[in-house]
């Protein structure tokens, strides 16, 4: 089955479900994706009327993590008269994981949320395609068969779908949102029962084999174009602190300049704050205006918590994340010991 046929089926099922939910007033608003105004993009949309369900689309360009709109820092979804609205959210696997993890951290109440699960088949790597096309304007992008077709004024190019999706999508193990055992009414559409994932993290072997100097040079080359715009932080559903550590001024921990040491420290500490919380949605890399690929760091975060604490974020509402718990039996292999 070609990608576009898959997408059509997903889109139809999604619209049917959305129509049912809105018509029966089971939800007040549905958050989903709509077609972007420029190629290679999509736009989040919030619809409130059954007539609007045809605006919902599913194409492989839906890269924003919609769970971001539910964190308390963004108060758009509180109706002054009704109080909290009943929300339906179009959830691919990583969005579902984000919702569950936010519930574990007591930031959202899953009782008011209907998760409309869809089986995500991968998100196109926009930056990779833009770089390959170069300085020619892209006018149309669509999936066909096993390929992505990119058209401009005087050119048409074909890219293999499997190779031009985001790096994180290539190794994704949670393509549909996890279902929640004690809230079975919350999950509609395609959800899966999943309590753990198996992952060899073999995509990191090449990087881990490098020497310290090689690693530093690679990280340096990847991050040096960072403009400290914090789009990655704003797109991440897990970055919901009212005062981010970079903005703290009592005391000033780290400088906000674009000097290389400051850039690296920002990404290092942000990664540390996301350990055990990141759901590998890839939104940070997709929204970066400079095209920085943070997937390597994301994968390492997943590897650390999986290998040390056998934990994968966003699968289970009951299991506490590694940074919120501790055990006498934790491994100590990294400690300095007597000879």
């Amino acid at each position: 089955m070609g990608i576009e046929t898959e997408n059509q089926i997903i889109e139809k099922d999604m619209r049917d479900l959305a129509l049912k939910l809105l018509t029966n007033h089971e939800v007040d608003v549905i958050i989903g994706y709509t077609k972007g105004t420029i190629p290679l993009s999509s736009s989040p949309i919030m619809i409130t009327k059954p007539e609007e369900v045809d605006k919902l689309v599913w194409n492989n360009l839906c890269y924003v993590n919609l769970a971001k709109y539910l964190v308390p820092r963004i108060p758009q979804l509180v109706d002054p008269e009704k109080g909290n609205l009943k929300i339906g959210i179009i959830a691919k696997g990583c969005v579902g994981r984000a919702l569950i993890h936010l519930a574990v951290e007591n930031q959202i109440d899953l009782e008011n949320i209907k998760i409309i699960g869809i089986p995500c088949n991968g998100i196109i790597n926009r930056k990779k395609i833009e770089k390959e096309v170069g300085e020619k304007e892209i006018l149309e992008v669509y999936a066909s068969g096993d390929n992505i077709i990119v058209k401009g004024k005087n050119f048409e190019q074909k890219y293999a779908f499997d190779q031009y999706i985001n790096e994180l999508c290539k190794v994704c193990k949670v393509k549909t949102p996890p279902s929640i055992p004690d809230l079975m009414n919350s999950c509609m559409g395609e959800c899966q029962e999943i309590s753990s994932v198996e992952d060899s993290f073999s995509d990191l072997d090449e990087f881990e084999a490098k020497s310290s100097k090689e690693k530093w040079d690679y990280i340096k080359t990847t991050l040096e174009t960072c403009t400290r715009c914090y789009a990655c932080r704003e797109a991440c559903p897990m970055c919901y602190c009212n005062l981010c550590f970079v903005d703290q001024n009592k005391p000033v921990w780290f400088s906000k300049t674009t000097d290389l040491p400051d850039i690296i420290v920002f990404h290092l500490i942000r990664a540390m704050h996301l350990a055990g919380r990141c759901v590998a949605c890839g939104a940070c890399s997709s929204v970066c205006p400079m095209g920085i690929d943070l997937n390597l760091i994301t994968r390492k975060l997943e590897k650390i918590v999986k290998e040390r604490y056998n934990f994968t974020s966003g699968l289970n509402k009951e299991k506490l994340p590694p940074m919120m718990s501790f055990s006498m039996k934790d491994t100590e292999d990294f400690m300095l010991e007597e000879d």
Partner: protein
Amino acid sequence: MTVQSQQEKSSQEKWEPKIIAFLCNWCSYAGADLAGVSRIQYPPNIRIVRVPCSGRVNPYFIIKSLTDGWDGVVVSGCHPGDCHYLTGNLVARRRFAILKELLEFFGIEPGRVNFMWASAAEGERFAMLIRKATKIVKALGPNKKFDKNW
């Protein structure tokens, strides 16, 4: 050998690392005190900062030390199960595990940041581990990665 490289070589041999050590008040700081009272020799490269518990050590302290130019960081606390505040060092152990893996992933030499347990009665152990940490950091050379050159 030119005069300049001769000077560089001898200054390199003379170079001593500056290591900042966060010691928990109840065990490790007392252990360091015992080492001092017992006249056990250990390298003078460490500068001690006393904290109530190893769980007080915020990873920001460690990273800020590296960005400020310290060549090495040592964090020492009570053995698991012996924490004065019962579970502070267990919380710290998780934090340090993740921090150490991430630092290594970013290309910061693994030997620069070290974690250890040393109790109040272990003066000799404390000195031995500090000797070991200093040797590791000295071999790595000065910490120039975070220099901002101004």
